[in-house]
């Protein structure tokens, strides 16, 4: 007999409904799965058969053929165990086919017949709703994730036998309700706050401007000056996530299998800090079935590259596309996938290999050639995409031991959020949301500059021999500074002066 059930797989950051057809007929006993299954799906026949047996159900040993459609997409998810098992039971008449076709089944089976969690349930639940199906069956561990999607009923039986009894109309199974996250006892959340950082006013101001305008930042400073500490706290001054953004992030983390213990909505902006040994594929995503990389995991958050010149050149150059397009396209023979990658890039580096170049109290041991070789690892095009360059000097003793607490993140966040609001109003007609995304034409149209500021720009342009691109960037940063200044309509000389300071703090004499 023939039966069809629905399962789901993921493709990029989206879910995809897979129709699972099962035929069980007379003939030499066999269990074949067709429709481009990968190894974990092909192995599912052993799990399915054992789980059915250990649930106290019997399946006849017949010629069983399972087809996964659409056939051209490689199926990776072990979550297809459950639809195959239910399809097999339906094909052998243990459960009614009509009842099964209302559901999408997503769970891996243990040999004992328990439903186990799988990655990517959130996008699969979204696909379920979009396909017009109303009900999804997931393992109890995936409930919170599936419940994030409105408009579908979620069922989470712990075992296969409970599900089968429910489908047979014997057992009872209530749709799951969301459970509040229970934090493990003694769990203290460490909150990184800007007030932890003493001194470093210049760098803090630069990061505030960056968070407000979505600008990328390069911090150059001597070892131990607090670059890493500062970068870790940037997400605490960025505006709170909207529900839409939070869902997008949760989707990505669901697919990457990084959702944490209760699998609910992610409410904090991500902070990704890959080691400098990271490969290009780790940074931008990859694999034969492409998985999200660091740039995608940092979506709506911060990507922090510490010791920037130590990264592989190819990995750094690969950042150009996501920085420009706010997404990353990964092409493989089988398909081309696009992952979102809208993040603020924060980089940190030492000024020279020994680290002390430019410090007042230490002597740099490096030769000019060594310094040149070190800084030249960073290509012009990459540095051009980083709007703000700032120096982070050694913190002074008085500042470090000062009793006065620095300004807390919440206060900075208020200013940043207000500035973002202004930008959104100005840029929403272009479908943009922050100043860093403006192009040259928009700058001409949207940024009015006072005559005094124009004079200043001219003087600097000529004395520093700026490129057209640098000029644009100064105006962009100036616009953000004006937005932070209670939303000043015009960019004044004061704003421009600060923007120049944030840009030309150091230039590697290129």
């Amino acid at each position, binding site marked *: 007999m023939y039966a069809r059930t629905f399962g789901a797989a993921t493709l990029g950051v989206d879910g995809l409904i897979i129709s699972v057809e099962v035929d069980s007929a*007379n*003939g*030499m*006993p*066999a*269990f*074949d799965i067709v429709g481009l299954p990968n190894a974990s799906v092909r192995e599912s026949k052993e799990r399915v058969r054992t789980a059915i047996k250990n649930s106290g159900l019997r399946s*006849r*040993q017949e*010629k069983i053929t399972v087809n996964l459609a659409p056939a051209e997409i490689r199926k990776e998810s072990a979550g297809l165990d459950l639809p195959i098992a239910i399809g097999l039971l339906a094909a052998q008449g243990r459960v009614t086919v009509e009842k099964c076709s209302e559901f999408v089944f997503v769970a891996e089976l243990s040999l004992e017949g328990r439903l186990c969690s799988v990655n990517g349930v959130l996008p699969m639940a979204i696909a379920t709703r979009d396909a017009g199906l109303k009900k999804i069956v997931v393992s109890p561990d995936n409930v919170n994730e599936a419940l994030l999607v409105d408009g579908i009923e979620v069922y989470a039986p712990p075992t296969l036998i409970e599900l089968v009894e429910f489908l047979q109309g014997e057992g009872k199974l209530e749709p799951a309700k969301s459970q509040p996250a229970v934090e493990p006892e003694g769990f203290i959340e460490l909150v990184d706050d800007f007030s932890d950082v003493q001194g470093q006013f210049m760098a803090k101001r630069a990061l505030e401007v960056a968070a407000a305008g979505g600008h990328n930042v390069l911090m150059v400073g001597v070892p131990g000056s607090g670059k890493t500490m500062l970068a870790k706290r940037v997400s605490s001054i960025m505006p709170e996530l909207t529900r839409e953004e939070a869902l997008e992030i949760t989707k990505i983390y669901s697919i990457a299998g990084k959702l944490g213990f209760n699998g609910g909505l992610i409410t904090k902006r991500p902070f990704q800090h890959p080691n400098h040994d990271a490969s290009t594929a780790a940074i931008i995503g990859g694999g034969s079935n492409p998985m999200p990389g660091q740039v995608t995991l940092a979506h709506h958050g911060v990507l922090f590259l510490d010791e920037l010149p130590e990264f592989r050149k190819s990995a750094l150059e690969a950042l150009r596309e996501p920085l420009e397009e706010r997404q990353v396209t990964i092409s493989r023979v089988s398909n081309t996938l696009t992952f979102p990658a809208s993040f603020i890039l924060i980089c940190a580096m030492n000024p020279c290999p020994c680290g002390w170049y430019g410090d007042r109290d230490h002597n740099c041991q490096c030769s000019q050639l060594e310094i040149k070789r070190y800084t030249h690892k960073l290509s012009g095009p990459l540095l051009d995409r980083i709007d703000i360059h700032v120096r982070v000097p050694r913190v002074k003793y008085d500042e470090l031991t000062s009793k006065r607490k620095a300004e807390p993140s919440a206060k900075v966040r208020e200013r940043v959020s207000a500035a973002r609001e202004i930008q959104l109003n100005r840029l929403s007609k272009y479908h943009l949301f922050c100043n860093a995304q403006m192009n040259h034409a928009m700058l001409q149209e949207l940024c009015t500059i006072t005559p005094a500021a124009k004079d200043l720009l001219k003087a600097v342009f000529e004395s520093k021999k700026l490129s057209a691109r640098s000029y644009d960037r100064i105006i962009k940063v100036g616009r953000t500074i004006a937005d932070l200044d209670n939303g000043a309509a015009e960019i004044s000389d004061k704003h421009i002066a600060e923007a120049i300071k944030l840009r030309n703090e150091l230039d590697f004499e290129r």
Partner: protein
Amino acid sequence: MTVATKKLGNAGEDFAANYLESYGYQILARNFRVRSAEIDIIAEVSGVIVFVEVKTRKDMRHGLPAEAVNWRKQKKIIEAAGVFLQDETYADCACRFDVIEIYALGKNFGVRHIENAFEVESEF
């Protein structure tokens, strides 16, 4: 193959056939042979064609009897079964592959019947 082992094997197969008949199986063929492939017993029970491989052992020096029905042996049996099922009489029948272990203890025999011992593996 020595005469003794051959004799032991035949005795085991006879015993297995009697055993099956006593459980209501109808023997359709014995030693069904296609080229180098052979099926010891082909029987039928309640509409299911059963292909039986009989393995007889005197001791466990070489492991369990059923362990000797390895992948290569299974392929042979499946190949022969395919030929047997070409016969129109048996078209679209349910079928299965069994292994019967016979333990020869002096003049007595012990039996273990493994139903559905193996199935057809796809080629890839």
